[in-house]
């Protein structure tokens, strides 16, 4: 496994070299060179903004495919809460769960159910003052990766709890081992994901050594098959199905931003979605403001997971459907009793085992004196650039181009305006030269005048 695995990648053939993505990337991680975009691996946080921005669908999220199911004897699907909001024809969650079984899974475990456990655990952590306040949600991996790079001193305030996806995989496998007698290795858990960052999170988890998830499958990959199965199930109305649906509205609500805050239900919570909004909020928090908030729920996608780039439907449509489903699930009694939950909390069963480490990648040079000199160069170059921030050079703005020049990966003449100036000067010089004629061909009338 390489140090920088990323789910978000470029479809080389489809990329037309336009500059839409470079402007939208919150990390200034994309450059367009020689007509194709490249993602700077160390900066990418897999937020998926470029997937949304690309008009040519050249930014893609690489996820696992259903083939991976063949590697395991017992396969469990872990559908995200927002998954259920992708179907028009669905009146109940049960139908979708059975459709998952029909396409090749042996069992299902709702991530919403694990989310309820995570919500309870975070609630207890805050209640028992086990973490420095304000506490940050650990659920959105893109936000955590953003914090690693830009807000590292806030990392110690991230809730030391595994993500609902991770908890779901562990609970599902435990249940399956009891149920089937199979060993841990024979059981595969597969997250049905609206999110590219979850793919990356499974490969290189941040707060645990090894992920219990064996594969992350993008919603769009199985969508058609699921629809077919749903229609088939609905046509056979009279059949009795085993009850699979266990999550309540509280867990389902995690699919939309504010859902987690409601579930954690501890003190004053602030929920923000959309990576650019998250960044401006983190700036404020880092300056020491918003001290009266106990819990921050930050989500990279606008609207939360329901707005995930791998989901099928518009986030607002998804939100309405999710709301209806939440209402329906709200009637259901919680699957885990308070006693069971307290027991999980005491056993620290789903606690993070690894600290989330800061990543220092923004500096211009290891040596500070050198970095200062380079920064001076950047300032000088930037002040001479036109300041249009047009992006035609392939860097997201003039300042970023200046940085790229100093880093040695770009040239001043990459700037079209600069190039034009240079051509103009050159043309003028050529014209001046053209006007100089050999003495033997000089204008004789001038000479007479002079006399």
């Amino acid at each position, binding site marked *: 496994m390489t140090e920088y695995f990323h789910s978000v990648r470029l479809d080389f053939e489809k990329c037309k070299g336009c500059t839409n993505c470079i402007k939208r990337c919150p990390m200034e991680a994309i450059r367009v060179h020689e007509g194709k975009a490249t993602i700077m691996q160390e900066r990418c946080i897999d937020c998926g903004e470029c997937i949304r921005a690309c008009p040519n669908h050249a930014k893609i999220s690489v996820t696992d495919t259903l083939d991976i199911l063949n590697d395991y004897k017992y396969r469990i699907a872990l559908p995200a809460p927002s998954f259920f909001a992708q179907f028009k024809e669905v009146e109940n969650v049960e139908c979708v769960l059975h459709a998952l079984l029909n396409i090749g899974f042996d069992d299902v475990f709702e991530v919403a159910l694990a989310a309820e456990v995570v919500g309870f655990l975070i609630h207890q952590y805050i209640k028992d003052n086990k973490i420095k306040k304000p506490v940050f949600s650990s659920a959105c991996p893109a936000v955590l990766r953003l914090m690693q790079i*830009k807000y*590292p*001193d806030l990392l110690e305030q991230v809730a030391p709890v595994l993500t609902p996806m991770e908890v779901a995989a562990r609970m599902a496998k435990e249940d399956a081992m009891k149920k089937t007698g199979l060993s841990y290795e024979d059981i595969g858990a597969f997250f049905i994901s609206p999110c590219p960052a979850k793919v990356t999170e499974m490969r290189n988890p941040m707060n645990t050594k090894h992920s219990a998830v064996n594969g992350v499958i993008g919603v769009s990959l199985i969508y058609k098959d699921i629809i077919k199965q749903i229609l088939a199930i609905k046509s056979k109305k009279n059949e009795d199905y085993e009850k699979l649906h266990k999550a309540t509205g509280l867990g389902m609500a995690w699919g939309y931003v504010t859902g987690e805050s409601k579930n954690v239900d501890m003190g004053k919570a602030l929920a923000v979605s959309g990576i650019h909004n998250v960044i401006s909020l983190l*700036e*404020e928090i*880092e*300056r*020491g403001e918003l001290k009266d908030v106990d819990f921050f729920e930050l989500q990279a996608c606008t609207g939360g997971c329901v707005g995930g780039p791998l989901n099928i439907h518009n986030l607002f449509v998804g939100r309405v459907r999710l709301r209806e489903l939440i209402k329906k699930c709200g009637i259901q009694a919680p699957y885990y009793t308070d006693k069971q939950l307290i027991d999980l909390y005491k056993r620290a069963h789903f606690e993070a085992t690894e600290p989330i480490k*800061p990543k*220092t990648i*923004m*500096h*211009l*040079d*290891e040596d*500070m*004196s*050198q*970095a*200062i*000199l380079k*920064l*001076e160069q950047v*300032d000088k170059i930037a002040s001479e650039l036109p300041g249009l921030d047009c992006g035609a050079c392939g860097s997201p703005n003039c300042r970023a181009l200046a*940085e790229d020049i100093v880093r040695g990966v770009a040239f001043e003449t990459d700037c079209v305006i600069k190039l034009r100036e240079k051509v103009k000067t050159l043309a003028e010089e050529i014209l001046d030269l053209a006007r100089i004629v050999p003495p033997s061909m000089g204008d004789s009338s001038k000479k007479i005048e002079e006399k």
Partner: protein
Amino acid sequence: MLNNSFRFTPHITLEFKIEEKDFFIASESASRIKKTLQQLGIKQDIIKRTAIIIYEAAMNVAIHAIHGALKVYVDPEVISVVTEDVGPGIENVELAMKEGYSTAPQEIREMGFGAGMGLPNIKQCSDELVIDTKIGEGTTLKAKIYLNKNHE
């Protein structure tokens, strides 16, 4: 020794103008300088302290003064943050250093600023703090953060 005093120290100076009631410049300059310090590879806790000083000091100018300027100087040893303003001056500096003491007008407090935490915060975050003020003329604030020193 003579040689030494002429030794060139690489440094960087950043400047911002602050107009009366310009509440955005404080957060903007704090974010900009934060990015600069990250590019220099400065330690995160120092960046955080500097950002707080810049924000609070610039905010003070925006709230109380007529106009002013913010200057930030960085070299491998020290960061210094200076705000100079033309304004009313601080009547009682000792009192202004107390948490919760504020002379900000009511409308500013309604906006959520002027809670009387500015100067105490700046003091807490800086290694050295000098405030020079003349009533009816203006205030100069100089805060220093040493890069290789432990901050209590």
